[in-house]
């Protein structure tokens, strides 16, 4: 999982409340055997005018010019500004996979749906809650200034504007730690790598037959 300590990026809007996981990534894309590649279908129903399905060539798609992410000024955005109850609906981990694959590292909203919130942390995406009023203020600033950027300092728990304002936010200490270190469950276990190696070495002498090689070349 990618670590996130401090992130500065272009801000793009998802200006509606209750964006559910089916809006984030529609069900027809879940047949995939992959965890990547969902980015082109992020917000598929809003982003394209035609109906999408897995494997449909991108050249055949008709982007909706009204949709923010299709507009030049938001190209390369990595911070998503959203409204209440973002990520409601199913538990599909494909939702954060799609956001991450598109290039979003931070989603700012007044509130998030619970499961989605958890899933984000497993996939290196920071869901960041700010008071509704403040989010509204950021929406205004973003619409007024093309190229609007925000800096998120996770270590200090601060959102910083280029004008020098700063807003603090809350986050669970353990989750913060894991995200800063880029630790997922695997990352956490790998912190015990020395202990695992020690165990392995001892077992190799006690029970060498357990380490008889099944190698690709030998079968």
């Amino acid at each position: 999982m990618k670590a996130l300590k401090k992130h500065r990026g272009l801000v793009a809007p998802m200006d509606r409340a209750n964006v559910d996981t089916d809006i984030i990534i529609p069900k027809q894309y879940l047949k995939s055997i992959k965890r990547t590649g969902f980015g082109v279908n992020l917000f598929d129903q809003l982003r394209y005018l035609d109906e999408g399905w897995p494997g449909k060539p991108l050249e055949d798609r008709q982007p909706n010019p009204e949709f923010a992410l299709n507009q030049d000024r938001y190209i390369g955005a990595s911070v998503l500004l959203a409204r209440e109850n973002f990520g409601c609906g199913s538990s599909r981990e494909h939702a954060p996979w799609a956001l991450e694959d598109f290039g979003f590292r931070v989603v700012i909203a007044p509130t998030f749906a619970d499961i989605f919130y958890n899933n984000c942390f497993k996939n290196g995406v920071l869901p960041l809650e700010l008071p509704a009023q403040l989010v509204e203020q950021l929406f205004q600033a973003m619409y007024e200034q093309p190229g609007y950027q925000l800096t998120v300092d996770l270590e200090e728990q601060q959102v910083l504007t280029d004008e020098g304002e700063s807003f603090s936010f809350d986050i669970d200490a353990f989750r913060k730690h894991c995200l800063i270190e880029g630790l997922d469950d695997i990352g956490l276990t790998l912190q015990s790598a020395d202990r695992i190696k020690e165990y392995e070495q001892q077992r190799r002498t006690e029970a060498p037959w357990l380490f008889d090689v099944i190698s690709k070349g030998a079968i």
Partner: protein
Amino acid sequence: MANTLYDKLWNQHLVDARQDGSALIYIDRQLIHEVTSPQAFEGLRLAGRKPWRLDSNIATPDHNVSTDPGERSGGYEALKDETSRIQLQTLDNNCDEFGIAEFLLNDRRQGIVHVVGPETGAVLPGMTVVCGDSHTSTHGALGVMAMGIGTSEVEHVLATQCLVTKKQKNMQVRVEGVLGFGVTAKDVVLAVIGEIGTAGGTGYAIEFAGSAIRDLSLEGRMTICNMAIEAGARVGMVAVDDKTIDYVRDRAFAPTGDNWDRAVEAWKQLHSDEGARFDRVVELDAAQIEPQVTWGTSPEMVASVGADVPSPQDFDQEVARKGVQRALEYMGLKAGTPIGEIPVDRVFIGSCTNSRIEDLRAAAEVVRGYRKADSVKQAMVVPGSGQVKHQAEAEGLHHIFIDAGFEWREPGCSMCLAMNADKLGEGEHCASTSNRNFEGRQGFGGRTHLVSPAMAAAAGVAGNFVDIRAWEKKS
């Protein structure tokens, strides 16, 4: 201190006990198949991680492969279902990219992971074994601590060689005495589940013990451990004895020379000590167990072949009554119908529960000289692996099946989970040697009756369930 077999295996593999009560357990062998691994490999790739110990993994496709001989002989190009083909090719590509050994689609050693593991010696006594499949408990028959895991755990084990898990409580299921004529391992485990229920083993690691279990072959013990999960237990085990060691000897990946001698010494300790404490003990009298047939939509809904389909009124609890009522509706059965009068539309002999050579021999012996009943639309025999298939053909078993109108298929999971073309039609009754009779498991609206291989074979000939103890064998 006196330890159970499970305690011993746990202690030998404990890398780290964590403060929250979970533990890091070292995994000796991971078995990989096409369905639960793609996202795990993708996860590794994305995080830029490598497998911790390549040589501890072995892969083979099974769940989604076609078992149709025509389709299979044409290789990938002949596979009709594109999604399946992509999934199979993805497994090959991942194994190539990461350097993991794989028995490919038409390799003779390909087959259902839980059949392939023991028969190749990739699974050895005293190991910890995981696989992204709940029936991994099968391997416990060799004195192994084996657990089914999810995709994120598949990735975790690939990357760290460890599983984060909590220790289970100890349960012993003792089956003492001698099994009656015609009564098999499948009947024993169905009777156990009928006794303790599908949640009876939840939170426990079950050790199957007693003279009736010791009398079983290793293959029979695998059938028993396979269905530990159907009793709610993630782990099922049988202690190592001389039969275990004889089974392992000379397998392709079994240790040799000095390592063999040392291994055998260690394996001889793999049994529960005298006086070891179990949190729960269940005892069954082997002599009382009769051939079993499930009549409902849960493996605990099981009865002896001579019994009648029960009535909801036979049950004390309201919840149970409702469950039975719903099951009977789904199964299209009336309370009081003799089990022997249930008509059978299809027969499936296969799955990781009952697709090994002894299972096929038992079925062939019943079928020999008979013809499939006209009312039976299809009777499939799906060997568990290429090696099983080869052995069966060397013994001429395939001729017996084919002569009787049974289909002789290529190895795979097939109609056990009906992921591909092998499935039941709506409302059809199937005599199946697999392990799950859930609604829709073998096809939308399909009605599964779990039985032993001999009972399934006899049902295919008779067109309904018959008591195998009265079967007249032809030679």
